[in-house]
């Protein structure tokens, strides 16, 4: 038997490290090792116990469970750990997925190259270097239909080919690991859980375009990812997989890690290059495109982590196998980071062509509370929301684009009826306005003005014509902004107006927030018929706004009330009314 503890950032945040120490203290004979993100983030910390091929998965494990686990290892008696064993229902979260990019995540030890190699690691690279010309590699990728997973969905082979065709001895292959979307964490998971998969994909890409230098631009907020990537690079270097004359061929490639200082806009490829060169992260004008003039003005190719994570699999299994999954225009699988009001949150990788319902209800298990599903925000702040009645939309670049949202990098924030859509748009606008680099007028001032309008509306200060003005501004920013950040910033506003215009109107005309989320537009009162005078609300009120004698109906002084909602949540008789 052997014990494997999920130690991605998610697991560590939930207490996996403490569980590991506690288990180590138990002097168990079975070896204890780690793995990356298993994917079921909502169940962390997770302890997997392998008995040959049989797996017993324990979830939501705490330090105090260590003796029981030790007991099980020694005796095989499952009784004491039965409450920890993952349910069949929860197991479906993984079993219903099709994992390519994440194929090794949560299975192998990311800190040991041998475990990667044992999973056919670096065979794809070897076959490329020894059996295929760069053009043939590009052909396989072309056949696979792989498209950029960072958001834009541009065909990967096309970019590789453009960089390959670009003149110049010195070329760069860059991996964009600046995953900045709030709610997206698939890139982090890949680097933390399977760094060699990324390195192998990048080396294949470097070979294809003719680059001798590979750069990973990873955000500094991912220290564990950086640590594991560094470790992986060292191990690969020791094995001669990176450096000069890889696998004894003419191909040489060096690696560099650049920790980005944390700006969303640096996920935009030209801003990323500026930052790499040591400048302020601001996008450059295109053309020239990076394939012609990129890092140090040399031909450069930039792909996202998840894109590279598919490459080795495609080489090993053939482009056709990848293309066999998905739809006409979108091939292979896509990883989604599912969060929000959904029952099961975590990383979900499924073939293109499935529906949003498959992800949110079938795999995600539906809503966490009894409130009905309202909408899902796709693609983070650059994306848009898709309402409940479009839940059967197919996962496909075109189909998602038609709704006004985007595939994006795969962030999926699930919302129920308690989410105010104006507030949601405001949240994302607040993010993009702050993350605007400040270069172009439309983005720098336009997003700020949109945010100010949304703030006014949620405060009940909206006026007739605000929606139209917002729309006018949105379209103008989409048209006029310099880079993708600005051009997509209006999407959350445009889609919420498109699908939830009545909510905007309620805020503006009736000064009401239908979801009851905008504190300036709600009022708490007590229904005297239901109130039993238990005094619980009065005792919990932080500003003493509630008065009343014991066993007598209580009253909220609305002038004093700060609308914290505490009374509403503590009342056991549904006597507090939020309206």
């Amino acid at each position, binding site marked *: 038997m052997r014990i494997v503890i999920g130690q991605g950032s998610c697991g560590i945040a939930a207490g996996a490290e403490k569980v590991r120490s506690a288990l180590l203290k138990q002097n168990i004979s079975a070896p204890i090792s780690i793995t990356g993100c298993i994917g079921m983030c909502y169940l962390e910390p997770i302890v997997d116990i392998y008995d040959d091929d049989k797996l017993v998965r324990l979830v939501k494990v705490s330090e105090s469970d260590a003796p029981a686990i030790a007991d099980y290892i020694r005796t095989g008696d499952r009784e004491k750990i039965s409450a920890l064993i993952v349910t069949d229902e929860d197991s479906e979260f993984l079993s219903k997925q099709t994992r390519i990019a994440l194929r090794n995540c949560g299975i192998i030890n990311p800190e040991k190259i041998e475990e990667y190699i044992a999973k056919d690691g670096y065979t794809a690279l070897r076959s490329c270097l020894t059996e295929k010309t760069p053009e043939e590699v590009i052909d396989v990728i072309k056949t696979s239909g792989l498209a950029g997973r960072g958001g834009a969905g541009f065909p990967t082979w096309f970019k590789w080919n453009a960089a390959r065709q670009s003149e110049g001895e010195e070329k760069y292959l860059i991996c964009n690991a600046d995953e900045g979307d709030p709610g997206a964490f698939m890139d982090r998971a890949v680097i933390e859980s399977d760094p060699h998969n990324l390195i192998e994909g990048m080396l294949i890409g470097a070979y294809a375009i003719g680059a001798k230098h590979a750069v990973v631009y990873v955000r500094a907020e991912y220290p564990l990812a950086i640590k594991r990537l560094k470790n992986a690079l060292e191990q690969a270097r020791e094995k001669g997989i990176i450096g000069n004359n890889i696998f004894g061929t003419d191909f040489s490639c060096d690696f560099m890690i650049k920790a980005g200082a944390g*700006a969303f806009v640096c996920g935009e490829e030209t801003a990323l290059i500026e930052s790499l060169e040591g400048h*302020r992260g*601001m996008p*450059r*004008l295109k*053309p020239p495109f990076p394939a012609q003039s990129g890092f140090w003005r040399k031909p450069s190719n930039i792909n996202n982590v998840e894109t590279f994570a598919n490459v080795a699999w495609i080489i090993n299994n053939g482009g056709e196998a990848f293309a066999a999954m998905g739809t006409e225009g979108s091939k292979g699988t896509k990883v989604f980071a599912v969060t929000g009001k959904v029952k099961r949150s975590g990383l979900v990788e499924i073939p293109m062509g499935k529906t949003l319902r498959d992800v949110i209800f079938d795999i995600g298990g539906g809503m966490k509370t009894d409130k009905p599903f309202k909408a899902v925000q796709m693609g983070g702040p650059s994306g848009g929301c898709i309402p409940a009645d479009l839940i059967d939309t197919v996962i496909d670049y075109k189909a998602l684009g038609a709704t006004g949202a985007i595939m994006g990098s795969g962030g999926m924030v699930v919302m129920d009826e308690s989410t105010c859509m104006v507030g949601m748009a405001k949240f994302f606008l607040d993010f993009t*306005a*702050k*993350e*605007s*680099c*400040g*270069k*172009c*007028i*439309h983005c*720098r*001032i*336009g*997003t*700020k*003005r949109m945010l*100010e309008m949304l703030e006014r509306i949620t405060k009940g200060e909206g006026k007739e014509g605000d929606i139209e*003005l917002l729309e*006018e*501004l949105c379209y*103008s920013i989409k*048209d*006029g*902004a*310099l880079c993708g950040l600005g051009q997509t910033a209006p999407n959350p506003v445009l889609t919420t107006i498109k699908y939830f215009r009545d909510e905007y109107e309620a805020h503006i005309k009736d000064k009401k927030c239908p979801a009851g989320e905008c504190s300036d537009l709600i009022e708490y009162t007590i229904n005297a018929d239901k109130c039993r005078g238990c005094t619980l609300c009065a005792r919990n009120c932080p500003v003493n706004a509630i008065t009343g004698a014991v066993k007598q109906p209580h009253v909220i002084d609305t002038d004093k009330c700060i609308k914290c909602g505490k009374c509403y949540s503590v009342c056991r008789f549904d006597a507090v009314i939020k309206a």
Partner: protein
Amino acid sequence: MINLTINGKAIQAPEGSTILEAARANGIDIPTLCYDKAVEIYGACGLCVVEAEGIPKLLRSCSAKCTEGMVVNTESDRVVQSRKIAMELLMSAHDGDCVAPCQLNCPARTDCQGYVGLIANGEYDAALKLIKNKIPLPASIGRVCPHPCEKACRRKNVEEPINIAQLKAFAANIDLDKDDSYLPECQESSGKKVAIIGGGPAGLTAAYYLTIMGHEVTVYDMMEKMGGMLRYGIPQYRLPKEVLDKEIAIIEKAGVKLVNNVKLGKDFTIESLKAENDAVIVAVGAWKSSSMRTPGEDLEGVYGGIDFLRAVIKGNPPEIGERVAICGGGNTAMDACRTAVRLGAKEVYVIYRRTRNEMPADKLEIDEAEEEGVIYKFLTNPISFNGEDGKLKSVTLQIMELGEPDASGRRKPVPVEGKTEEIALDSVILAIGQKLVQGDVSELKLNERGNIEADPDFFTTSIDGVFAIGDATNRGASIAIEAIGEADRCAKAVDAYLNGQKLDTRVPYISKRDESTIDYSDRKEQSRINPKVLPADVRNKNFDEVSLGFTEEEAQAEASRCLECGCREYYKCKLLNVAQRYDIDPSRFKGEIPQKYTHDENAFIERNTSKCILCGLCVRSCREVMDIHAIGLMGRGFKTDVSPAFSLPLDQTKCNNCGLCVQLCPTGSLTEKANLKKQVPLDEQYTEEFVDINGTQASVLVSRYNGKVLRVIPNDEVSRNANLSREELQAKLQ
């Protein structure tokens, strides 16, 4: 060469050229704010966007290359909308005044800040010329104007407004005292004739400017002398007629023909003048005193305000006796009461139904009249003038109190039931307004107020080719500067008419700061200086001019108090130029202003971040051209700003004062100090000259104003890298 089409025009462009280069080479202007050939393409402003057939996105023409067969539209609706919104957003965050509030509040748009600033520098001739661009009678107007400019002056928020009107009189006096007073250059004769009826401030102003424009102008006036109400409505002690005479003489010398003692309706008609001229301007004024409709107004001893003043000025004052009351609270009432004092009346009352605070008259006038012995009867209203044998004996006054504010915002006077007062009087002067004598202009259509109906923009009347301005039109009598402003605009409208065109009356957009956000705490208090006046007990016995005018020292000190609200880069602001090209309304996007006004300067360069539009030209030129890196971009998003490294003051950076950043700054965020004690926004002209720097002929830009070198700015690599101070550069000028 590449063949393409821009705005329907077939164009050839060299291989590799951008759409912007191709367009500009062919005379098609595309606006830009962040583009300059000196630095790399940046793409921030997004104003250069164009639409190309077959390309779904708008293209930034500064970077997009021409391709064979390309069809480009630089002014499509989508392009214009994108530029318009960009400018609206930009201006919504631009915290600056293009022109000062004093100028904006002057009905004639006189460049007050300009001439005040020039006076502070001792540049009196230049100040006078600037004034005469808008006012041909500055010595007179400086003395009599109720100065709306001063009401808008922001110095009032520190202590008191600048004494703008008296400064104007000061500069004008100097010019009048010279043998060669300033005469404008007139344009070549147009061969067109214009007749103007009425030689008051409106008529004379229109005549002066139309003459400068090359037209032959004759002014017809019914009185013995020109000047209208300036002469016959304003007492000698306020405006000595010798001053007015001199100013009118200059107008005559400029080429205006003056004809007196001829009256409309008697000696000629509008139609008869029209037959002999290409255009006629009616500026007959309002010469009839208004009635109060109080019983007893027909008694002997009751006079109209302007009738009374005119009679005194003409040398035959009426018998007013010893006890005189003046009804009204405006400047005519002040003129009448102070004149009555000077005529020897023992008790002079001013009857006004509100209080001192609501009086429309100038505060100084109110105070000076009181010093001269005038007695104010506030909160009283005449209900009857009582007489015996047809002669006035007394007035019965209703006592009033202030009630709720009325539409004008002033508290409305309401009678106190049953409370009255009677004052024995020898005469009463009704100074409550004046009206047009309608019979004189019977040929023209009048409005419901009984004034000539004139188009407010084009000044046209019911007869083609006949224009009307001043007190006789629309809303009736107002102040002289109002008439002068109308006359100036009317002259332009008539000039356009004579050239077969129509004047463009659109008011171009300008940027204004939100008054409520301005902080004055860094300003040191400095009291307003008023010119010395004759002592009250001397002046109340004669008609000598009360004000002694500014001494040079006083004038310079007073002018130096100016806060310099208007932007010094106004005349060459690219930002404003682009803003005015599009019909923009930045108030749609009113919101937070990103940068607070921060002032930073070194010996030559001043920085004001609140006007910065983040085009990056300063940062980029400092880095790319000069390799100095004295300034950089700081912060993110809306809070991005340009700042010296570590937010240090500019003079603690490596800045070598090359001035390139100032030259490239498209707005007033960076300015180069002029060779002046007090900085002034001026319409400067730059010429390229060459100076010897270590044996090399180096290019510099030189700005001269009124003969004086205001700036010398390095203009090539040699002069920029010479590290010479501006004084040293100037000394090298031939």
